[in-house]
Structures are given as structure tokens and as C-alpha cells.
């Protein structure tokens, strides 16, 4: 009996579990393989929906589905967060006190925003990375009557498109409220251009010029002075604000750091095999890898497909055959009714096209199709 244990029931873990249940159907039926999924929550959140919650376009209740309903019935699913990993003995211990053994382990516990790592950010900025924060952002936008809006971005963060999307969507929101003449935007970004993807930066800069969005690059927030309403950067510059919108810096989950699996919660991972460095039967996917690629649902999805195929082979006939090529696909909302996308891998940079309405409608459709995608039906 080959036991596969998956820790983390988000995008990556759910897709991987369903993929394995399908591939190993015969082995599971004849008790030669099992798939167990441990997660921290009985509900699955569609995280990209948080951006829409902040603009009043989705209700928080629309973001959740019962995790159990997303899973193939042969998967052993337990809401029992893992507290310690004993990789030398092939077992993990969870909150209930129960120990779960495995032959193969996949870790996909995701990442979390840590606004407190920049002094003053938590108290003075709004963000969209938790349900509570997105609801508060919606209220802050709704009641804002004019002034200076600053956008600051911490490193690393999940979903690389959020800083741009927030800016485009705020612009359209205040345009609809006929407040553009009373609102100014200052967009800041950590590196020397306005987006990490060079081609996306090239496309977005003239859009910002047209919209009158001021931008300051090489800006990494050091601290926020809530009294003077100023953000000071590591690089020595200052941006003033009346409304501060942040993309907070992220870390992996605390349990990863506590178990010394990786600095800041990022687990050293082989970029091609997705094996945890130094381990043959432990694999890592999604946000919690230390790979130099976007922390995005699509990344977790492509990685889960590669791992599903490889783990199914390992559990049945032998060696892994597929490698992960660094594939990522991200939609980019370019306002309230237009969008574009970026698709790239380790070798090929993206070539974004001008935004269209059709891509925007496709993204809105995907917001609903996500559930079928994690079920493995797409």
C-alpha cells in the first residue's frame, strides 16, 4: 500500500488530490494506494475574488465552497492542521494529536500576508489579502471623497498582478463616482520599472501616463508614519497619502519556519522535479516553494498537474517522468471592463496584448469556473 499525504487543501492541494484520485482509481479501489489530504479549514476560499470584494463586485459569501464537495470521494480528507513534520520518519503530527504516516508527502500550505513586518503598515494601510481586509478596503473606497491615494508594494507577495489591478480598478471606480479631479494616485514599486514583467511594465506605463497616475520606482517601504501620513522608503524617498493601499509583504506559514523547513516559510525546492531539496519522497508546490516564479493559483495548478503524474508513477510503476518548466498564466484586469493576460515559463517571457473586453469577460467566467477547475473537470 502506497500512502500519499497532501498537507494543505488550497488550490495546489485540491488539484493534486483529485488528479491522484483519478490516476490511481484502480490502486485505491484495490487498497494498493491511498490519498489523504489534511487542511486547516473546512471551507475553500477563492482568493482572487477578494479583489472584487474590495470593489463591491462580489460578496464575501460568494468566495467560499465546502472543501469536501470539491474532492473525489475516495480522498481521505481531514480538517486537522499539521503542527510538526518528522521527515526522517515519514510522518507528520496534527493538531488533534493524531500522527499521519506516508510514503510520499506533498506540502502546499500556501503563504500569508505579513503587513506587520513594515512598521506602521498594519495600522495605516488597507489591503485585499484577507476577507476582513478586503471588506474594510471596500468601505474605505466607498467613503473616500478625495485626496492623495498611494499604492505601496511589499516583497515577496502573492499574485504579481494585484498592484496594477488595484490601481486600474480604483481609477475606474473613482471615475464612475466622478471624483477623478479630486483624487491623485501615486503608484510605487520595488524595482526599477512599474512591474516585474518587463513587457507588462512597457504596456502599463503609457496607460498610467494617460490616466495621470504618478509612479515612483525602486521604492521599498521602510515605515509608515500615520500622523504625518507619509511612507518612508528604504531608498530614502517619501510618499504622502490620505488613503494608503498596500500589497503587504508575504511569508510562508509559521509551521514551515517552526519546523525549520525553510527560511521565512519558503521551502527549498528543486525547480524541475519539485522535490524538497535533500529529500526524495517529499514534494512542494504552490506559494510555499522558494522558486523564483510568481506565487499564483495558476503556478500551483501547473505544478499540481506535473506532480500528479509523477506521484502516480512513483506509487505504481517507478520513476517520475515529467518536469515542471516554470509555467505561469495570469490574467490582468486593466480596469472595470477590460483585461489582458501574461503567460510565461522559465525560458519564455510573456508578450501581453492590448486589453480587451472579451478577456475581461473570460476572467469573470473563470471566477465561477474555478470550482470546476480544482475539481479536475476543466
Amino acid at each position, binding site marked *: 500500500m502506497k500512502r500519499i499525504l497532501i498537507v494543505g487543501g488550497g488550490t495546489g492541494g485540491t488539484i493534486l488530490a483529485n488528479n491522484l484520485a483519478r490516476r490511481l482509481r484502480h490502486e485505491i479501489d484495490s487498497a494498493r494506494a491511498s490519498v489523504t489530504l489534511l487542511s486547516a479549514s473546512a471551507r475553500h476560499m477563492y482568493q482572487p475574488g477578494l479583489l472584487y470584494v474590495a470593489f463591491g463586485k462580489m460578496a464575501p459569501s460568494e468566495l467560499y465552497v465546502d472543501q469536501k464537495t470539491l474532492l473525489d470521494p475516495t480522498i481521505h480528507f481531514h480538517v486537522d492542521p499539521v503542527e510538526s513534520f518528522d521527515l526522517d520518519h515519514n510522518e507528520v503530527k496534527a493538531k488533534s494529536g493524531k500522527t499521519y504516516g506516508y510514503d510520499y508527502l506533498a506540502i502546499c500550505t500556501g503563504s500569508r500576508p505579513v503587513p506587520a513586518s513594515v512598521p506602521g503598515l498594519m495600522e495605516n494601510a488597507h489591503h485585499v489579502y484577507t476577507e476582513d481586509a478586503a471588506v474594510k478596503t471596500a468601505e474605505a473606497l466607498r467613503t473616500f471623497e478625495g485626496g492623495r491615494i498611494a499604492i505601496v508594494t511589499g516583497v515577496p507577495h502573492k499574485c504579481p498582478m494585484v498592484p496594477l489591478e488595484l490601481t486600474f480598478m480604483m481609477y475606474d471606480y473613482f471615475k464612475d463616482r466622478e471624483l477623478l479631479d479630486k483624487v491623485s494616485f501615486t503608484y510605487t514599486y520595488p524595482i526599477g520599472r512599474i512591474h*516585474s514583467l518587463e513587457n507588462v511594465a512597457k504596456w502599463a506605463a503609457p496607460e498610467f501616463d494617460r490616466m495621470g497616475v504618478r509612479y515612483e520606482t525602486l521604492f521599498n517601504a521602510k515605515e509608515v508614519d500615520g500622523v504625518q501620513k507619509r511612507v518612508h522608503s528604504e531608498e530614502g524617498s517619501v510618499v504622502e497619502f490620505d488613503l494608503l493601499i498596500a500589497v503587504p509583504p508575504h511569508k510562508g506559514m509559521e509551521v514551515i519556519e517552526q519546523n525549520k523547513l525553510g527560511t521565512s516559510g519558503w521551502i527549498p525546492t528543486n*525547480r524541475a522535479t519539485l522535490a524538497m531539496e535533500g529529500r526524495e519522497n517529499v514534494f512542494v508546490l504552490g506559494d510555499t516553494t522558494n522558486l523564483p516564479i510568481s506565487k499564483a493559483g495558476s503556478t500551483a495548478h501547473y505544478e499540481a498537474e506535473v506532480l500528479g503524474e509523477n506521484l502516480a508513477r512513483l506509487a505504481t510503476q517507478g520513476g517520475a517522468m515529467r518536469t515542471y518548466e516554470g509555467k505561469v498564466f495570469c490574467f490582468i484586469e486593466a480596469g472595470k471592463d477590460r483585461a489582458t493576460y501574461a503567460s510565461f515559463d522559465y525560458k519564455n517571457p510573456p508578450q501581453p496584448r492590448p486589453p480587451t473586453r472579451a478577456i475581461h469577460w473570460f476572467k469573470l467566467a473563470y471566477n465561477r469556473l474555478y470550482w470546476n477547475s480544482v475539481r479536475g473537470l476543466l
Partner: protein
Amino acid sequence: MSEATIVDARGSFCPGPLMELIAAMKAARVGEELEVLSTDRGSAEDIPEWIKKVGHTLVSSSEEGGVYHLRVRKAK
């Protein structure tokens, strides 16, 4: 030479080598050295520019078979 923490940003279009370095610098101790590996020519210019602006130290830089190696020390 003491061991440097390797930041392997080869093939990284997004977030890219400089963002990877900024994140690793935050997690590093003052005095610690990090070596960024990058296949992106632009980062051989961006990284020294950022290092200088923030006040860290560029220890060395070289290129080998299309891979740039930039070694930096966290100064504050």
C-alpha cells in the same frame, strides 16, 4: 571566502532577480553575504543600482556561460 546564501533567480521573469534579492535581503542578517544567480542581463545593472541606492555593498560580479553571479553584503 565565507559561504554566501545562494539566491537562484535563473529563468525568473516574475518576480525577477532583483525582487528575489530584495526578499532574501529582508530575511538576511546584517553582514551576511548573498549571491544572486541570474540569466537576465538587465539584472546585472539593476541590482548594483539598487544596492547603491539602499547602501548595501556589492562584493563582486561576474558572468559565466550566460549566468550572472552578483555577490552582495547586507550593510544595515
